[in-house]
């Protein structure tokens, strides 16, 4: 009933010496951009250059949460579109992305946080995104595992409830987009490493890889956590990015317990139950730059401490596996989508921090339009790099920065 088992994203092919467009990074944003370049703009002569295998980086290391309740008006519409795209992509790609729109519950632990949530909710509602402020009792009705007593470090005052959010099977997105792009003729070259970018008269002309030179006039670097180092190393553009290691873990599988995604900024902790029954839960990040995907004893213990307080029933559960990925953080917690400015034909898409998964579909769509037309679509114009020298940080985080601006 399933037919023959054939390769999902094409047979392995030779690398050609020239493509209309080259994308460095076979992660979600690269794959999505390639998919939309081909589907929406008819640019199908595209090579994706992936050093490892597709989905190796953040694409396979996130906790698969999707939502559109960002803080500012530039971000909300972008994330809303990304959220709306999951069912559409499932259909288009004919691949079950297993979108579970169970809703997200973002816990608030003080009066001040409730006020901050109110602003975020108002912004969401203003842009047509469903989101509500609920009190602690209502939160407990949605998630009976919550401890709403006073005697924990951060008592729960209420929550921001965002019903349209949820979880998507992250690996499925990688494989589905790869299959979808490959059907249009996009080539995916795994185990292929880009080593240099060549420009002439301020224009992109070619890139070097460990498998030879590729000529192209359009280059996108969207290599997740590795973007900033690649862009500075190969193109010489320094970015306001700190690459941090972020960790997540799962428990043993359990019959249904959590019906919503639960997150808490104060506890630096978010949790949801996967379709397999595991509680997947993510932690805070080490606040110093790293390219390691090693985990730490510190965070898994921290996670135990945090969950023990605000969802104490989980004390009876066991952690099974912890892993780490990279998050390229910007000072204002908003991404950098830019191109065709510093160098003609050179585009970059990075700085998503830990929002890279939930945004990939919309980001791919608009970056594809950007690359096809050479002009940034209005939707992503505000995300340019120059905002930092113009003192126009995006305001996705309200927190007053401490010490140096980059932590």
């Amino acid at each position, binding site marked *: 009933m399933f037919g023959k088992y054939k390769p999902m994203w094409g047979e392995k092919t030779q690398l050609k010496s020239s493509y209309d467009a080259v994308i460095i990074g076979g992660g979600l944003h690269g794959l999505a951009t390639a998919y939309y370049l081909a589907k929406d703009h008819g640019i199908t002569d595209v090579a994706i250059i992936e050093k490892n295998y597709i989905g190796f980086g953040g694409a396979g290391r996130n906790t698969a949460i999707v939502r559109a309740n960002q803080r500012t008006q530039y971000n909300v519409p972008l994330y809303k579109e990304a959220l709306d795209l999951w069912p559409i992509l499932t259909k288009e790609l004919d691949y079950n992305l297993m979108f579970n729109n169970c809703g997200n519950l973002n816990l608030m632990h003080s009066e001040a946080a409730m006020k901050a949530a109110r602003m975020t909710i108002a912004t969401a509602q203003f842009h047509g995104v469903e989101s509500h402020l609920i009190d602690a009792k209502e939160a407990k009705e949605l998630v009976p595992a919550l401890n709403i007593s006073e005697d924990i470090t951060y008592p729960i005052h209420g929550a921001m409830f965002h019903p349209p959010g949820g979880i998507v099977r992250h690996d499925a997105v990688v494989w589905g987009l790869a299959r979808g792009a490959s059907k249009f003729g996009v080539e995916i070259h795994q185990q292929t490493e880009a080593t240099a970018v060549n420009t002439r008269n301020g224009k992109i002309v070619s890139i070097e890889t460990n498998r030879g030179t590729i000529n192209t006039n359009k280059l996108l670097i969207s290599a997740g956590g590795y973007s900033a*180092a690649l862009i500075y190393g190969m193109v010489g553009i320094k970015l306001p990015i700190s690459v941090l290691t972020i960790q997540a873990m799962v428990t043993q599988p359990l019959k249904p317990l959590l019906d919503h995604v639960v997150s808490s900024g104060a506890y630096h902790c978010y949790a949801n139950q996967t379709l397999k029954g595991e509680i997947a839960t993510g932690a805070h990040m080490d606040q110093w730059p790293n390219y390691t995907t*090693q985990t730490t004893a510190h965070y898994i213990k921290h996670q135990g401490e945090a969950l023990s307080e605000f969802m104490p029933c989980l004390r009876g559960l066991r952690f099974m596996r912890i892993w780490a990925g990279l998050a390229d953080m910007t000072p204002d917690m908003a991404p950098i989508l830019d191109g065709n400015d510093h160098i003609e034909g050179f585009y970059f898409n990075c700085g998503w921090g830990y929002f890279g998964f939930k945004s990939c579909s919309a980001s791919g769509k608009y970056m594809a339009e950007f690359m096809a037309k050479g002009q940034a679509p209005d939707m992503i114009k505000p995300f340019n790099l120059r905002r930092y020298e113009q003192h126009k940080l995006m305001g996705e985080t309200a927190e007053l920065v401490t010490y140096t601006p980059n932590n």
Partner: protein
Amino acid sequence: MSLTITCPICGKRNGYEFRFGGEDKGPRPDEDSLTPQRWCEYVHLNECVAGVQKEWWVHKDGCGSWFTIHRDTVMNVEVAKPEADR
């Protein structure tokens, strides 16, 4: 991963006693004729080295001193100062 950092006062300690203070970018630039680009570079832009870099740390849970170390960002371990830097 379990970073340890050698504090010049307290010796080798658990990395979580410290707070990261940025890539070493040298002293504050002079303010005369400082362009927005140069200012932005000093304040916001990073080299994001995948390898050994010199960086600032403060021993927040300990003696409170600021100092630089060299650290390999790929393995997340403190390394000896490179020769050129001694």
